[in-house]
């Protein structure tokens, strides 16, 4: 389904959205971020490198009444007192076992630690303390559509495995790969208006110009977009931007997660973005909405045919498919927006 997503935007960016990204999408997606120079770290150095120390405090107060749920909001390396975590606790749902070991005082903790090698325990927790860049993934995600999202994830998963991929695989047998690659490039080229407008809206003039050069080169030398001399000869890589990213660029958060039928993981902001981008997609203008959708379907199948097996491989490592896709989607979008 993730690949399907492409259909809406005719671009790899959708791939990105789909968590596919992880492995495969890899592939395509990245193309989207191509232009970005990966300043990632410098820009967000604080979240990555900040060195707060909640877990030292956390370890010291382990078993505190509030349980694992109460990580102090404020880094409290020196305080380490249990009072802290109670007061400013950042409520996170108890994960079930909190009750069991509740309410130990500080000293009792040490007794408990002795039993199973407390030294280790402290070592471990100082790691958590030092590598706190992952902490935000401990917070509960606001996900009001969770139930629906899970069901739709299952539906999409089956649709992909049972319908889309078999179709794509049959199609791959009759269509030679170079032809399929050309078709993919053709659709990608058609997504130019979306990239132009969104680069412009984000005041990325250079990227907008590059996209325009790409479009002109590929539409002429590249025979209507069937080939991509802009990349291969002129070293101009695509600058994928969509309206969801534009909104994100101006500070709009994603809102809660929404799994779209067939299109896969999304959120409120990006689903709206897909709609807006649809108005910039020439396919719908030239052919009308319904034929346009059918054409998008071809695009999607064609895309899937070039990435057979990747979805399976990507998701095989998931422990919880829905959470895996949701988290990967959001992380990937954050990166795309930063760039």
């Amino acid at each position: 389904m993730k690949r399907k997503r492409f259909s809406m935007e005719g671009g790899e960016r959708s791939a990105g959205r789909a968590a596919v990204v992880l492995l495969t999408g890899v592939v395509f997606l990245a193309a989207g971020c191509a232009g970005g120079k990966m300043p990632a770290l410098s820009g967000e150095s604080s979240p990555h490198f900040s060195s707060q120390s909640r877990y030292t405090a956390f370890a010291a107060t382990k078993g505190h009444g509030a349980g694992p749920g109460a990580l102090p909001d404020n880094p409290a390396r020196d305080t380490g007192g249990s009072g802290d975590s109670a007061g400013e606790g950042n409520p996170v749902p108890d994960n079930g076992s909190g009750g069991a070991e509740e309410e130990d005082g500080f000293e009792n903790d040490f007794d408990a630690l002795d039993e199973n090698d407390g030294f280790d325990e402290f070592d471990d927790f100082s790691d958590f303390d030092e590598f706190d860049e992952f902490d935000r993934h401990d917070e509960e995600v606001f996900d009001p559509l969770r139930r629906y999202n899970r069901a739709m994830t299952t539906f999409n998963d089956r649709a992909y495995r049972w319908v889309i991929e078999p179709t794509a695989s049959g199609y791959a047998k009759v269509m030679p790969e170079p032809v399929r690659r050309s078709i993919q490039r053709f659709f990608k080229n058609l997504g130019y208006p979306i990239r132009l407008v969104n680069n412009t809206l984000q005041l990325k003039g250079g990227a907008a110009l590059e996209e325009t050069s790409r479009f002109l080169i590929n539409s002429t030398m590249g025979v209507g977009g069937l080939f991509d001399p802009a990349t291969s000869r002129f070293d101009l890589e695509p600058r994928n931007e969509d309206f969801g990213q534009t909104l994100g660029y101006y500070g709009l958060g994603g809102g809660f997660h929404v799994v779209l039928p067939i299109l896969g993981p999304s959120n409120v902001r990006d689903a709206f973005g897909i709609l807006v981008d649809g108005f910039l997609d020439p396919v719908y203008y030239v052919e009308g909405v319904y034929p346009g959708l059918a054409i998008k379907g071809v695009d999607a199948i064609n895309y899937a045919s070039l990435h057979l097996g990747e979805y399976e491989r990507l998701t095989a490592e998931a422990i919880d498919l829905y959470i895996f896709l949701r988290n990967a989607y959001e992380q990937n979008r954050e990166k795309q927006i930063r760039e």
Partner: protein
Amino acid sequence: MKKILAAAMAALVIVLVMAAVAPAEENDAHPPEDAVKRLEESIDEVLYILKNKDLTTEEQKERIEAVIDPVFNYGLIARLSLGPRNWRQLDREQRDIFVERFVRRLKDSYFENIAMVQGDAETRVEIREKSAQDNRVHVPIRASMKDSSVDMLYKFHLDGDEGWRVYDVEISGVSIVASYRSQFNEVMRDLSVEEMLEQLKTMEVPEIENQQ
């Protein structure tokens, strides 16, 4: 007199500069460049092994493992992936089991992934400008294949005498550790530690439906 002043100023500047540089002193034995070098060498070796068609897949796997094992801090990756909240629920023995199974799984999926990259003879890897701070170095790379490319970020930390070791990898902005962390946090709401460990044994996607 002016000359003396100028000399004094110069000396002062030098001292200040040295002072500014001093905090990096502890990294002297392992300058951040070493992390980049380490990554570069590992990538070269892995690509070389992958391109050696005389080896069976099993042999390739073995050799690649020998290359990357010292570079990855598996134990740390496993702990960070499970997260502090869940980690404290495991007793010692369970922790060992967890790390062992998790690492096995991590390696398996790593091989799955590079098997895919390897299919492409034109794979090129470009190492980009690193960013370093204290005892961390993040090295972005871009792997380009036919018609596509993927950005990855290798995150190193200075691990004592072991030198620079990887504690997380981001692929297209998706951190492996963060991905597992969010999943473990979810799964551990409903499963006992034992059940979770059991689930780690297999790579199959267990379909968790309507698990509210």
